[in-house]
């Protein structure tokens, strides 16, 4: 029979106890809820990338030793689903930080939910300018607001393309916002009224009638504000209608999404748009990012929704690292406030975005639309191996378009 020394046994038990307590202390987790549009191929990849990046942070030791527990939910780009997800994440998962959504029409009601519950809210993709105009003290937008895009586009169009512009505006929130803002900016900057305006369905497939009318109107440019697949179809049909390449095609912010050059092929050549990231960016950080996205997700030239999702994770990482978190059972409200204040203190974050991202404490669009620099990009070549070039990079004043 093996004799066990009582002292050794006591020591071992104490060791186990201490290790257990240490594990218990380490087990404190930062809970992050994510609600995104996980219905399209790219949408799933944006969401997956956010999850993968949080996973990488955990593998490298977490944030100040605390692990991140991220929960990703699909809102299908529907406001009621987004509201349900955010209510669930806030009340059931007790998240410290909420990320969402991809669609402006979903983010808009979520802003009210997070404001009421007192949960810091990072917006990954939504560009509708009304999001930050609601005056919530809890919302921070990583992407460039629609009001800045319009200013950059209108300036370039008025100076380089012409003032006779036709507009095809799809019925999704971001495209409507881009279309209206562009018309407003063309009027205020150049005194130009639209030569032709048509509202089309979000998933419209036939633009031929509009294209014929635009052709006869003899315009200088056509702005196609629509989601990626819809825009690609419209671009192809603009050439089928016989509108020459000399009539410049102007895209809304979703023109940066890879389905546009993939589907439109040669019709994408020459299309220019304002975005927050150019895959043609030659900075080492951008080249490394492009390579990472290509390897992990099979996208050769990532669009700005990828870069914004990546930048959002980095901003969250900085803020969570700086926030003094207790992460115990009674500190949820205090931890949420600390994270909010830490995000508001993020200044001049230089990531993949076209310019530095800074936030501040006041619940105003000037403070909460963190990225004010839009980059003007044109497709040099369409198809699977599309190529882009940077036409201009413009930083707008904080109160532009308000």
């Amino acid at each position: 029979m093996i004799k066990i020394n009582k002292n050794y046994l006591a020591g071992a038990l104490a060791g186990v106890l201490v290790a257990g307590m240490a594990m218990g202390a380490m087990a404190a987790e930062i809970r992050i809820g994510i609600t995104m549009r996980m219905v399209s191929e790219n949408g799933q990849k944006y969401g997956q990338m956010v999850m993968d990046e949080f996973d990488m942070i955990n593998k490298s030791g977490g944030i100040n030793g605390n692990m991140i527990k991220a929960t990703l939910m699909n809102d299908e780009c529907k406001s009621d689903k987004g509201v349900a997800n955010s209510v669930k994440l806030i009340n059931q998962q007790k998240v410290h930080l909420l990320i969402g959504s991809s669609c402006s029409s979903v983010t808009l009601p979520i802003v009210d939910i997070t404001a009421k519950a007192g949960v810091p809210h990072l917006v990954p993709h939504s560009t509708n300018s009304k999001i930050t105009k609601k005056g919530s003290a809890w919302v921070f937008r990583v992407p460039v607001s629609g009001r800045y895009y319009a200013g950059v586009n209108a300036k370039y169009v008025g100076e380089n393309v012409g003032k006779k512009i036709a507009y095809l505006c799809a019925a999704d929130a971001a495209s409507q916002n881009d279309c209206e803002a562009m018309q407003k900016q063309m009027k205020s900057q150049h005194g130009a009224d639209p030569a032709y305006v048509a509202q089309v369905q979000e998933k419209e497939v036939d633009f031929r009638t509009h294209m014929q009318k635009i052709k006869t109107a003899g315009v200088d440019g056509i702005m196609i504000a629509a989601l990626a697949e819809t825009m690609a179809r419209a671009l192809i049909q603009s050439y089928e209608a016989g509108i020459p390449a000399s009539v410049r095609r102007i895209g809304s912010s979703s023109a940066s999404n890879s389905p546009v050059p993939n589907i439109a092929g040669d019709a994408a050549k020459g299309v220019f748009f304002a975005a927050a990231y150019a895959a043609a960016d030659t900075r080492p950080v951008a080249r490394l990012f492009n390579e990472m996205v290509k390897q992990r997700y099979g996208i050769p030239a990532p669009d700005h929704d990828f870069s914004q999702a990546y930048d959002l994770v980095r901003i969250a990482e900085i803020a969570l690292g700086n926030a003094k978190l207790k992460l115990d059972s009674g500190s949820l409200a205090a931890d949420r406030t600390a994270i909010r204040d830490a995000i508001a203190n993020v200044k001049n974050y230089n990531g993949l975005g076209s310019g530095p991202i800074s936030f501040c404490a006041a619940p105003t669009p000037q403070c909460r639309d963190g990225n004010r620099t839009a980059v003007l990009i044109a497709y040099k070549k369409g198809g699977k191996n599309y190529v882009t070039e940077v036409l201009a990079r413009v930083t707008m004043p904080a109160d532009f378009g308000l």
Partner: protein
Amino acid sequence: MAAVNSIFRSLSEFIDQLSAIHRMLPWLLAFGMLLPLPQILAAVFNDYYVYLANRICIFIMLSVGLNIVKGFCGQVTVGHVGLYAIGAVSAALISLHLGWSFWIAFPIGILVAGLAGVIVGLPSVRLEGAYLALATLGLGESVRIMIAVTPAFGSSTGLLSIPPPTIGSFTFDSFEKYYYLVMPAAMIGIYMSFSILRSATGRAFMAVREDTIAAAVHGINVVKHKLLAFVISALYAGAAGGLFAHMPPGYIHHNNFTIIEMVTLLMMVVLGGIGHIWGGIIGAIVVTVIYDQTLEFYFYQPLLFGLSMVLIVMFMPRGIGGLIDRYLVTRKFIAVQEEKADAAS
């Protein structure tokens, strides 16, 4: 099983006794039992479940309303979600643009939806079955498209900041408070549905469902009753829409009224049992809870729902309501047999 039978029997007898005193008593008892639900849900679980309870109440109104036209009157409609949208947008616009109180906007929204119900019901005069389904589908989808392309109706941005209802200084601005609006509304809806079913109108609906020619021969105005079923059903949808629009955070968007929502609604009615009021209620609860519990498996959720629909139609065509019916009939049969045996001995 014997224990379950015994509980059912006791409960049934208790309800019968209450009804014998006054027919409203069981309803008042149910209302009283449901009053503390938000506090219980918030204490045992969290506020999210109160939100779910509110959503369930709205879905109950929709499915009970749909059951009137589809289950009682046998009209195949796939445009119900369009009427829901009309109720929601009408009530929201009145509150937002005219600044009128919810208590005025809500009934006007219901009336507007009722009027739209006449338009949706008109094809039923000449069409039946799949053709009527197609016509109503077109009308329902037209409503959504109209909302999507009309800036005055919210267009792509949706209607924001729809004010919550108020009574004096009391505002229904939280899920818990809002429950006390949607729960009574759902209870009234269910009660009205039972009343309609037991009335001459309800019997006329069922006669039209079973055989329009035979119903006409017996002096039932088929056209009038078909239209009436559509209008009553539209009133329910309008009420559900108005309540949905004003529920915090007070936001509606045309994406809330797509064909997917219509299929989900049909799933509730089919699962619960077409033609069973309780079926619609059970369907609304079951589908909402299943949907919630499968949220994290979003890749497989549509597959799960589609497959469930096919399996229910194949193996449980009368839904959960049909199962309950079968149970009740069996119980009655056993009771009669027992009575006969007692009498013989």
